[in-house]
């Protein structure tokens, strides 16, 4: 049944290209929007008969080794939300129908890649789907043919290719050790005889390095701020919201928990890298003047939190990490959408030359305050609960230094977001911006939608804790 999540986008991208251009122009946007919406429905109502009957006929033809668990459903939900928002935001940025057609084609390919990466149960297929995601995001970054975008894309390509090579080397070592590329086979073999020879350590090290590069954790982050800040504004929503989360963080959690298993060495490497990212990412974003670069460094810092939760090695920590992935997808997409509106309306990205925009752009101003507060972990917004879970998990395991680092990072997050709010939205309105209007429906609707998700999830979190959020860790111990 889950094969539908790959086959339907694939079929629709083929059909869109076969249709005559006039028809294509009119339906492409609506079709892709409907696809991402249906994906969210699919996650919430998996038992609906509509999918089941469709799936039965397809599954007799195509056979996939797909499997779904809580982590996968959270990722699929994040993908559908962020793709939906990106498509809506793109309406404002891509004027010509020709360009929109190619944009939608590439975004459907990215959707296939991300869905496949979170559904597959085979390390080589994981590599192939990650590469599909990566290639489509290279194209999306460079789509505007701007020289800065080409530079950012080139850096991303070189880093990502090196990361893929490291991962492939690790995959071939695992193949040598176990004779298989299936998650379950490798996991069972590693569990039966925890080998500690040099080859295993080399394979784990190579895999971790590759995934750290893809996730943009701190010593390996060189490409991330450049790619985020040089991409078109609506693409950076997609990149920050899900692409790097699927390519780096999801793959990291899956490989560590379901394939390689925890060891003390892996845990200390994870905690150390994560702590570095949390602190250095926050400090680096304090020094930025371009707001998109600030958000990019903030992404590095938040990814550090997710890895801290994973590194705590407990069920609570993993649940917190997965919950934080969802929260990060919502609040970071929200903040990038707000940046896109400011950039579209003023044409300026330097925070020092902006001020008082909240008077002219009230929706953008209010939603960005909520997004920032959620990111800084202020109760009762959603970001608070996931950070609290991660910090409690670290404290309970005795990693008190790391728990303090997490709290300190949260304070730094608040500091740079207050700076961002104060310089862009608060204060006296600069007279040259007195004719600025609120960005249109295409940008305010996604902002309001994401704000509603943040507030609702935050308020409902105490009710959801027992049944939905704590059970996120069911991948643990399996």
């Amino acid at each position, binding site marked *: 049944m889950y094969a539908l999540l790959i086959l339907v986008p694939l079929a629709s991208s083929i059909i869109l290209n076969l249709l005559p251009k006039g028809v294509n122009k009119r339906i492409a946007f609506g079709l892709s929007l409907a696809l991402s919406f249906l994906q969210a429905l699919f996650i919430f109502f998996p038992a609906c008969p509509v999918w089941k009957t469709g799936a039965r006929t397809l599954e007799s033809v195509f056979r996939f080794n797909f499997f779904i668990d809580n982590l996968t459903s959270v990722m699929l939900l994040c993908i559908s939300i962020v793709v939906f928002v990106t498509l809506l935001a793109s309406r404002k940025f891509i004027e010509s129908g020709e360009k929109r057609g190619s944009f939608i084609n590439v975004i459907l390919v990215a959707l296939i890649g991300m869905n496949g990466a979170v559904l597959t149960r085979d390390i*080589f297929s994981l590599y192939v789907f990650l590469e599909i995601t990566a290639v489509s995001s290279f194209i999306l970054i460079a789509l505007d043919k701007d*020289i800065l975008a080409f530079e950012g894309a080139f850096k991303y390509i070189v880093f990502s290719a090196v990361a893929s090579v490291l991962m492939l080397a690790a*995959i071939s070592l695992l*193949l040598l050790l176990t*004779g298989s590329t299936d998650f379950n086979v490798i996991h069972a073999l590693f569990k039966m005889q925890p080998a500690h020879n040099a080859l295993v350590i080399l394979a784990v090290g190579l895999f971790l390095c590759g995934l750290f590069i893809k996730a943009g954790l701190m010593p390996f982050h060189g490409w991330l701020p450049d790619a985020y800040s040089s991409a078109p504004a609506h693409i950076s929503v997609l990149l920050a919201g899900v692409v790097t989360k699927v390519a780096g963080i999801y793959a990291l959690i899956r490989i560590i928990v379901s394939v390689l298993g925890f060891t003390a060495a892996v845990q200390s490497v994870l905690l150390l890298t994560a702590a570095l990212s949390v602190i250095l990412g926050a400090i680096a974003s304090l020094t930025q003047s371009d707001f998109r670069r600030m958000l990019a460094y903030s992404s590095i810092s938040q990814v550090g939190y997710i890895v801290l939760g994973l590194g705590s090695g407990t069920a609570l920590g993993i649940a917190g990490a997965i919950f934080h992935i969802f929260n990060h997808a919502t609040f970071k997409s929200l903040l990038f959408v707000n940046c896109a509106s400011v950039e579209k309306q003023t044409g300026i990205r330097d925070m020092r030359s902006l001020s008082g925009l909240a008077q002219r752009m009230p929706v953008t101003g209010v939603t960005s305050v909520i997004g920032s507060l959620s990111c800084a972990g202020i109760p009762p917004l959603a970001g608070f609960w996931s950070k609290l879970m991660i910090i409690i998990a670290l404290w309970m395991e005795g990693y008190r230094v790391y728990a303090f680092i997490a709290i300190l990072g949260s304070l730094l997050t608040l500091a740079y977001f207050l700076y961002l709010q104060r310089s862009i939205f608060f204060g006296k309105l600069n007279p040259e911006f007195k004719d600025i209007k609120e960005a249109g429906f295409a940008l305010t609707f996604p902002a309001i939608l994401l704000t509603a998700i943040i507030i609702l999830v935050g308020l409902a979190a105490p009710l959801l804790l027992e049944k939905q959020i704590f059970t996120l860790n069911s991948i643990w111990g399996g």
Partner: protein
Amino acid sequence: MVSAIFITLLFITGIYCIMASYNLVRVLIGVEILIKAVTLMIIVVGSACGRLALAQSLVITLIVVEVVVITVAVGVVLGIHTHNNSLDVRKVRRLKG
């Protein structure tokens, strides 16, 4: 053993090529050399553990993926060339901070 040494040499050559060259196309050639090293490694591993059929199918998939990545990369290099009129890495330094 010989193949292990050869694979390591290819790896070192690829990394050196990426780090030491000032030409964008040469950087991509370095990436290609790295991918070739990994391809060779998968084949050697397949024959060592007796799963040659699996290794072959992996290698064929890998070659296809690699071609796609390099095609997009060359497109980006072409874009940089039309803007800069040169392929020098030292001129690709507008993004900083």
